[in-house]
């Protein structure tokens, strides 16, 4: 069991060294989970302002939206990443004067495309599940407040995560992301009240 894990960990490390997928995964995770969170946040704000009082309806609309964002991320990332990485492999084939089919090198690129698409597709879906969970657990209107709180906390955490990546202040980057969420909230509430 330990040998199996070690072998796969080594392979992943090799794939990352070849493709640099770690950085790309991080970027896709932040971008698309922020996309998903902000979309669901907007949807909930709209529902709240419109006085929607049916939690099942909110969950259905929220999940439908999240699946659409996830699917868009999955297919978009899969096609674009695959195209970009295939181009890289072809350039390398020219430099090496050999084909790279059935090599670990090519497998690393195939794996990177798939895992990138999976992260791009699943991250907004998971975020949506978390943000919509209060509607299953708490009665309305409290569920709205819990969901808004979760969304704002998530924005801050995502910003802090980026701060950790860029070795900046976690608080400052967290507040920047939180600010984006609050700004979005303000704009939506202004539009809803026109």
């Amino acid at each position, binding site marked *: 069991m330990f040998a199996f894990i070690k072998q796969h960990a080594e392979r992943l490390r090799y794939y990352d060294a070849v493709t640099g997928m770690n950085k790309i995964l991080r970027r896709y995770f932040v971008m698309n989970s922020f996309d998903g969170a902000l979309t669901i946040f907007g949807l909930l704000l709209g529902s709240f302002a419109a006085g929607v009082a049916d939690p099942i309806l909110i969950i259905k609309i929220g999940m439908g939206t999240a699946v659409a964002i996830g699917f868009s991320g999955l297919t978009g990332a899969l096609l674009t990443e695959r195209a970009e990485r295939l181009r890289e492999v072809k350039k390398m084939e020219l*430099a090496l004067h050999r084909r790279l089919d059935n090599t670990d*090198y090519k497998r690393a690129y195939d794996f990177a495309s798939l895992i990138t698409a999976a992260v791009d597709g699943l991250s907004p879906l998971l975020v949506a599940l978390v943000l919509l969970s209060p509607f299953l657990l708490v009665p309305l209107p409290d569920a709205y407040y819990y969901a808004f709180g979760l969304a704002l906390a998530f924005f801050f955490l995502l910003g802090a995560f980026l701060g950790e990546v860029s070795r900046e202040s976690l608080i400052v980057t967290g507040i920047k992301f939180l600010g984006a969420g609050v700004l979005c909230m303000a704009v939506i509430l202004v539009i809803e009240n026109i």
Partner: protein
Amino acid sequence: MTTIRRLVLDVMIPLNVPSSELALKLSKLTGVDGVDLLVTEVEHRIEKAKITMEGENINLDAVRTLLDKTGASLQGVDRITCGKRVVG
């Protein structure tokens, strides 16, 4: 039975494949006691290297297969030493 005791290979390696990793993998092959990988030239996408391997019984096919699998390109075998003892 005579065996290959030393091999010097001329290899092209993709720049994004860590040469340390390749050297380590080669050193783990059966019959290989030690590996020396010397980068001789770095180009836009690749690096050229001289790989020297020593051991009791180096399997050239296994070396070729490993290089092939890793994405390296074997340009040629520059030196091969066989027999009961290392000469030269």
